[in-house]
């Protein structure tokens, strides 16, 4: 359907629209007009992606600036989904407009998924694929070939050079599969096609890392212009992604490999000195002059890109004491030896980068400045030496990245050395964590560079936490409730067992048999009453294991077994996917199944349990993070110091966002229904940290239940759900046709005129109220409905 938001015509590829979708689009447009950032929380399963895309595409095509859209998501499957949505949208637009628009939409993912080279694509590890591809496509390899030497090149890559650089692939939306097919047909590399076409695309869909990880972003996203619209979807975990992109772990093994890499470099240098000394000399001369490598742009993927953020790069000549190749390798060896020595210490150390540097200087006379240039110098050296077996140097690259980072950042980072894997271990297995504590550091360039950044997810409450954590200001912060024609999901908080004993996964009581038995009873009851699938989330693998074995001992699992098949998630992804498959089969063929999984595992983040795949989700305990982790402790301290966020507040925020993720798994659309059970007495106090759409559906009476009460309430709920619910009852309430939308607009305008008459409306406030109003209206309509129409309808049906 087609409608207008202010002066903007929007084509929406479905005949009906949800009120919250409309509100969401209005807020999006407001953000884009204002040229600021926003945080939007939209209930899961309400068509967030499609509303986002249709508004932004409309915006692009309508206004002369044609702002580009960069849509970032987390996983491959989400990227594919978004591409498919975009494709459908563009098809609809073509049909409606009667002509095809000049439009390009591409997705980008790693080489591992896009490679076509017959032998490279068979590699299992992504980094090996990257390294092998580089050795087939690097600029100097090509030069060698031109000189007549016998080197391998990738034909798929070379073919690209025969095409027009701005028209490597015809216009249109290309899904990943489509790209692969086209690439195979034309014998051109899909990965580099996508990379090179990025400046000519209207929509780019790729993963967070291409924008957040400085090592990749510098190469991939450098050319994007300032007025791009950046969207981070499923962004509830974005702070962790930011932190990970700047953190490095070193182990004894990687140091040993790095040392070997340094020795190999040394050998290569002396080889080259005897065969081709000019080359080294010319590199040296260039460094003396302080010249940057001019051909970096040509080399699409240098061996190691600088791990520091673009703003923090030192733009000056490489320090004199690492200019010569042999000096530099000696320097690296000394640094690695120092790190090895540090690894020998048998107690935990945590220190700030300045104190690390001080100690380093005292012991080895390594200064901060050359350390900062490590990554850059190594890149230059590798290029000069024309190394092709780059994957051998990966550990060395890691050490160089570490060196650069530790010398660049004074604050917001911490070095933690853990000599033992766990507190009980006696054989040392040291790990040096160089961990970033401040999520704002990595994302700052994104906010600085792009005028509109949209952060959105199904569960991103409390909204104000994110601007605080990531250091930005918003023009719009909005959370939308879900408009429903009937109450189609039932959130409950169970705080007591049938014996009235409180249940909790808290540390003191978690292994208390009475507590575990109460959880067990809850499980039995819900396995009996729930049709089809149940998903159960535990706070951690450890706890899950211990509870399962206790349940086994109590005979609880035997009882569950009668009504459901039991499947368990494990840290092994292969096993887990097998379990998932079995689970789905069991749900589909009517046997019914129960999946036991972990709140921070893969299942909780990426897998949807729509319809009969999930009718009940049980959260056993609040999924707090493991607070004994030193990295987490350091981060908590940092947050308290810098952002004045209390440790407990952060922990509870983090636990609740994961719970919300878990709960959101079962409800994937308006025609879906499900029960959400939070089983822990501590949930009671944390209610207000749930996303608005869940907390508003959580009734006061359901917030403090015993197992029996919960069971009764769930039975009642399922009974109403089992009555047929004709789709036409949703119309005008939770879905709007075009007429409904117009009706709404008319009302709104009338309201506005009235208020203007009263003279108390200024433009700004008006805009802000808009979204809420939509929701309020819908809610009111909904209530009306429940009272009269619904009963009438039901009676009709019954009769």
């Amino acid at each position, binding site marked *: 359907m087609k409608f207008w938001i202010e002066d903007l015509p929007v084509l929406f590829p479905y005949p009906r629209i949800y009120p919250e979708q409309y509100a969401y689009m209005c807020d999006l447009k407001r953000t884009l007009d204002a040229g600021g950032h926003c945080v939007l929380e939209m209930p899961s399963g309400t068509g967030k992606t499609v509303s986002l895309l249709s508004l932004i595409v409309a915006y692009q095509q309508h206004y002369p600036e044609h702002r580009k859209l960069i849509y970032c998501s987390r996983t491959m499957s989400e990227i594919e989904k978004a591409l498919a949505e975009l494709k459908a949208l563009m098809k609809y637009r073509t049909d409606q407009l009667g002509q095809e628009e000049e439009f390009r939409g591409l997705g980008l993912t790693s080489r591992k998924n896009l490679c076509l080279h017959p032998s490279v694509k068979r590699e299992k590890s992504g980094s090996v694929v990257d390294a092998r591809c580089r050795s087939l496509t690097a600029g100097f390899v090509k030069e060698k070939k031109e000189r007549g030497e016998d080197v391998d090149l990738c034909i798929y890559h070379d073919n690209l050079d025969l095409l027009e650089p701005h028209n490597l692939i015809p216009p249109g939306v290309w899904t990943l599969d489509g790209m692969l097919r086209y690439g195979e047909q034309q014998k051109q590399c899909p990965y580099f096609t996508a990379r090179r076409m990025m400046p000519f695309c209207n929509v780019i869909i790729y993963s967070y890392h291409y924008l957040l990880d400085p090592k990749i972003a510098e190469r991939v996203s450098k050319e994007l212009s300032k007025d791009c619209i950046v969207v981070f979807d499923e962004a509830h975990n974005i702070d962790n992604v930011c932190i990970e992109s700047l953190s490095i772990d070193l182990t004894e093994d990687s140091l040993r490999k790095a040392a070997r890499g340094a*020795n190999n470099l040394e050998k290569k240098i002396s080889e080259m000195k005897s065969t081709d000394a000019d080359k080294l000399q010319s590199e040296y001369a260039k460094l003396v002059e302080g010249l940057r490598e001019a051909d970096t742009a040509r080399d699409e993927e240098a061996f190691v890109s600088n791990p520091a953020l673009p703003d923090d790069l030192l733009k000056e000549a490489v320090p004199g004491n690492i200019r010569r190749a042999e000096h530099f390798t000696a320097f690296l060896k000394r640094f690695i030896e120092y790190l090895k020595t540090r690894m020998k210490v048998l107690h935990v150390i945590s220190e700030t980068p300045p104190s690390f540097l001080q100690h380093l200087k005292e012991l080895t006379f390594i200064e901060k400045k050359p350390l900062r240039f490590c990554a850059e110098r190594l890149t230059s050296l590798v290029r000069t030496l024309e190394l092709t077996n780059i994957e051998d140097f990966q550990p060395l690259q890691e050490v160089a990245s570490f060196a650069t980072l530790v010398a660049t950042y004074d604050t917001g980072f911490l070095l933690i050395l853990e000599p033992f894997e766990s507190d009980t271990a006696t054989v040392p297995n040291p790990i040096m964590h160089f961990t970033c504590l401040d999520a704002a550091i990595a994302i700052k360039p994104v906010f600085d560079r792009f005028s509109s950044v949209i952060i959105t997810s199904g569960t991103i409450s409390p909204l104000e936490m994110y601007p605080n954590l990531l250091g930005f200001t918003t023009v719009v912060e909005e959370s939308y409730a879900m408009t429903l024609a009937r109450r189609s999901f039932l959130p409950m908080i169970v705080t007591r067992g049938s014996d009235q004993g409180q249940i909790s996964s808290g540390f003191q009581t978690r292994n208390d048999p009475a507590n575990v038995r109460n959880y067990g009873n809850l499980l039995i009851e819900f396995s009996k009453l729930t049709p089809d699938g149940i998903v159960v989330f535990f706070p951690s693998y450890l706890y899950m294991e211990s509870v399962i074995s206790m349940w086994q001992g109590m005979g609880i699992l035997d009882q569950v077994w009668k009504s459901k098949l039991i499947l368990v998630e494990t840290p092994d992804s292969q096993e887990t996917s097998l379990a998932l498959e079995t689970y789905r089969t069991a749900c589909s063929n009517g046997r019914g199944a129960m999946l036991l999984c972990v709140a921070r595992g893969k299942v909780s983040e990426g897998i949807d349990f729509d319809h009969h795949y999930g009718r009940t989700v049980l959260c056993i305990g609040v999924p707090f993070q493991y607070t004994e982790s030193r990295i987490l402790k350091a981060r908590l301290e940092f947050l*308290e110091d810098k952002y004045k966020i209390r440790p407990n507040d952060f922990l509870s925020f983090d636990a609740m966002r994961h719970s919300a993720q878990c709960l959101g798994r079962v409800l994937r659309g308006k025609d879906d229904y499900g029960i959400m059970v939070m089983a822990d007495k501590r949930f009671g106090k944390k209610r207000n940290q749930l996303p608005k759409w869940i907390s508003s559906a959580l009734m006061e009476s359901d917030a403090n239940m015993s197992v029996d009460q919960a069971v009764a309430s769930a039975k009642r709920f399922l009974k109403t759900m089992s009555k047929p619910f004709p789709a036409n009852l949703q119309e005008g309430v939770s879905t709007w046709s075009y007429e409904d939308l117009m009706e709404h607009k008319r009302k709104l305008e009338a309201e506005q005129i009235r208020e203007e008459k009263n003279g108390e409306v200024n433009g700004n406030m008006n805009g802000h109220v808009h979204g809420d109003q939509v929701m309020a209206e819908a809610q009111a309509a909904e209530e009306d409905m429940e009272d009269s129409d619904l009963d009438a309808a039901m009676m009709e049906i019954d009769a």
Partner: protein
Amino acid sequence: MSRQAQSRPQPTTRRPADSEGQDEICPVCKSSRYLTPTLRFLINPECYHKFCESCVDRIFSHGPAPCPIPGCHKTLRKHKFRTPTFSDLQVEREVDIRKKVGAVFNRREEEFEDLRAYNDYLNEVEDITFNLINKLEVEETEKRFKAYQRAHEREITENASLAEQERASFAALQKEEREQARSRREAARREDAEEKRQLEENRRDVLNRLASGQDAESVAKAGQQVHLKKRMDRAAAAERQRQLQAASASNGSGNVVIKGLRAKQKQEPEASVDPFGGLSFEGRKYYALQDDYVWAGVQETKADVLIGAGGYDVGAFTGRALCEAFAGLGVFVGDEMDERDREKMGKENDEMATKGAEVAATKGGNAAKGKVKDVKMEDPF
């Protein structure tokens, strides 16, 4: 990775737990760490060969002895033995050399015209170090090294002390930061505890009052109000605390930066002594002082080494003589007398007039002596 390890087919990869492989065996007595876990190795910076502690005790306790490794003829002394910092003795040696070089070549970036010059200097130093480490052109390099050391002795000590200062101030800063962070956290902890305590107290209070038979609703309301008030108090206190902290932080950082202070001192050199209290003799109105006077007395004095060696300057004498000769010329006694009379009449003390009198008094040398006290006549003349 050490040279020893390199010559062997990478034992390190196969035995990750015991990364040093055969290095853990004493070359003299062949005892290994595997059998004697307490084994400690020592090295001597003469030749960097390593022996176990007991061998060192045994061989070198009775005075200097030659190194027992075949082919190494260095004489070693026991007190020079130490535990190595690095397991790679190559690096150990390198660091020792760097220590030596670094103590001499310690120029700082700010001493150079531009970055390029500094980088060239660094390159140069690295070349020297590299040669010393790899025993290339040792003699020539040593010579260069010594020459530099001799030529720049003063700068070297200066820079060394600067570096020392920097280190000290850095350490102080670090300590202070840690201290502050700790106290901040402690304050937060205390606040939390306090809040909890008050909440508890409040609750008990409400219960007590209810127990004593007061109206439930009003009690609850009163309790809430008390709670609110306390909370506000606390917020105010926290704010105050923050301000205090901010103030102390700014003080603290001011104390530590010694560099800044030094620079300031230089900018304001102590004013030189001015015996004439600001009077100037430069304005020579009546005569011009020449560089040289052809007069026997002056010439002789000038030629006399004994006089000149003492610092006597003939120029000073001629200048003074001329000044004295013409000193009275600008003074008009009549005017001055008038002025004095005026002052005696106790009329307003005109600043300008006094000043004029002062000048006159100095120049005249005798007039108005009693009145001007701050100019000591006998000083200049």
